[in-house]
């Protein structure tokens, strides 16, 4: 039996895994039991997952890092996996920093910057439109996740950008940036 801490999107799951056969695993998550059969061990492997109510197939690609890509039912997930049981190391206390809103605006997809709606030094609020990123013919308005000042703009209109590249930084306001003070 091993226990893992799985980080998926903004949530963390504690998952216990017991190998019951060469290809079979019994997995417990939030008190629910899943039976998993691994069908292949290719670069992209397929497994069958069965719970009391559902049965789903997943394709898995294990990265050299702690990252695992999973595709199931047409949805895509990326998980970060850490061992916390069975001779592993105890998980460091949840870093406080993770809850802080990051003012870095990154490209959520590859595309082209069609317009920049703010200037350096401008004061913006949560939800203020900052940039328009065009991808697959759609104009995607990127808004500020926090209030503060536009610290830097790292792109120009017309620039082609890669996924996750840093576009703009909003910073400033110490304290709780997402909740303005009540009047």
């Amino acid at each position, binding site marked *: 039996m091993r226990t*893992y801490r799985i980080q998926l999107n903004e949530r963390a799951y504690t998952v216990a895994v017991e190998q019951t056969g060469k290809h079979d695993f019994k997995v417990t998550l939030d008190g629910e039991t899943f039976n998993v059969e691994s069908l292949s061990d290719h670069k992209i*492997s397929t497994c069958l997952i069965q719970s009391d109510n559902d049965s789903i197939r997943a394709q898995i690609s294990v990265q050299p890092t702690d990252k695992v890509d*999973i*595709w199931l039912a*047409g*949805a895509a997930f990326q998980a970060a996996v850490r061992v916390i049981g069975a001779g592993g190391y105890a998980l460091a206390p949840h870093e406080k920093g993770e809850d802080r809103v990051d003012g870095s605006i990154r490209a959520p997809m590859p595309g082209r910057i069609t317009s920049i709606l703010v200037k350096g030094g401008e004061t913006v609020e949560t939800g203020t439109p900052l940039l328009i990123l065009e991808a*697959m*013919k759609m104009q995607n308005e990127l808004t500020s996740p926090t209030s503060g000042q536009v610290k830097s703009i790292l792109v120009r209109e017309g620039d082609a950008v890669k996924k996750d590249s840093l576009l703009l930084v909003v910073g400033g306001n110490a304290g709780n940036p997402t909740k303005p003070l009540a009047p």
Partner: protein
Amino acid sequence: MKLLVANRGEIALRIIRTCRKLGVRTVQTYSDPDRDSLPRRYADERYALGGATPTESYLNIEKLVHAALVTGCDAVHPGYGFLSEESSFVKACEENGLNFIGPTSEALEKLGNKLSARETMRQAGVPVIPGSDGTVNDEDEAVRVAETIGYPVILKAVYGGGGRGMRIAKDSEETRRFFRVTKLESLSAFGRGDIYVEKRLSSPRHVEIQALCDRRGKVVSLGERECSIQRRHQKLLEEAPSVAVNDDLRHQLNEATKKGLSAAGYTNAGTVEFLLDKSGEFYFLEVNKRLQVEHLVTEMTTNLDLVEEQLKIATTSSLELSQNEIHINGWAINCRINAEDPRNFAPSPGTVIHYHPPTGPGVRVDSALFSGYAIPEYYDSMVAKLATRGRDRGEAIQRMRIALDEFEIAGVPTTIPLHRLLMHDEGFIQGNFDTTYLNSVLPHLKSNLLRLEKFAAVAAATSKLGKTALPPTHERDEVSKWRTSARAHHMLGHGGG
């Protein structure tokens, strides 16, 4: 005949398939990112347009006409989107002696853009939605018109299409903001930024009639399609026929379509879109002057090959089919599979690392995907159409549930989770929905995705253990069961060899 395919992706493949059936040679045009694509593989010849953006490639009239001429083509099929409804492209084809598979430039101009189409229909006696007289030039004018006809309003790109270049505004602030965004989107996608304003009907259904028209004024209706399942005016699911259309209404819609298209002198395949309000009144929305994305559900219920009919009309000028030969048989549903994050519908280009589409009775997949295909960021996010047909709507839904479950795509997120949800949603199953319906389903999608996330966590945990697996406990497991059973078979005296 030799035909230039002036499009890409699944529709290019769709066109090539009919051409191969009819013995028509094809030349596939392609941009740089489309060098390794299925239509390019299946066409008889290939022609490089160069560049990656639509403006450099599939929207470049000069390059496309040149391509057709140097390769010795006598016809051009524009597919949908890109230049399919651009009269200057049709004119350029006509001037160079190329047979454009679609309406003539004369017919196109009568319907010209969304605004002139509205006027043509109004004069033909087809009901239209209240809106601005002509285009609105700036934010101030947009607000003035909106306040006269009353909120909410829709800002529409005159040259828009396929659900792009449209935004709903519910107050003056939104009217101003969306005027800017819609203008930008329209300029980038269609090369022109003209905008007009129309009243937004409350909770209408979107129903459309597929028609075929020849050059002698004959118009045949192939029945309706129901396209109310939309997000931001982008259709996500279509079906034929529609639960909302009875024989009487179907007759009225067919007659309005015939009147309107005849008045416009329309030719080739076209679709007249209508909005249907709660009281059963219908209003003209627009004419789609091309083969549409969702044409396949009509093919599945009429047993016709619409690309073949298009080619016949363009080459012989007349339509052999007559209205009493058209029979709607069974029910078909199409799910658009887009490379989009199902949580927020953000486009997600990337490489497909594993692809296994469903098959079986009543299942059709129109897609240019394959394992290893890199979905470019420059074009539309729709990567597959999954359609099922049944004797009735219930059987089509059952087949769709199974097909969606069988569909395996790894590498990019898709809209499959949404379709899986719809196929089990009571409102959809009852046929009780309108164009606002999808928004009411989205909260359920969130909880479904959370459930899927748990399964993903389970898969992730076993993947790590699998890689650092415990030593196998029973070496015997390594012996192939095939060989063991073959040996047993032999020992039992069944011989063989």
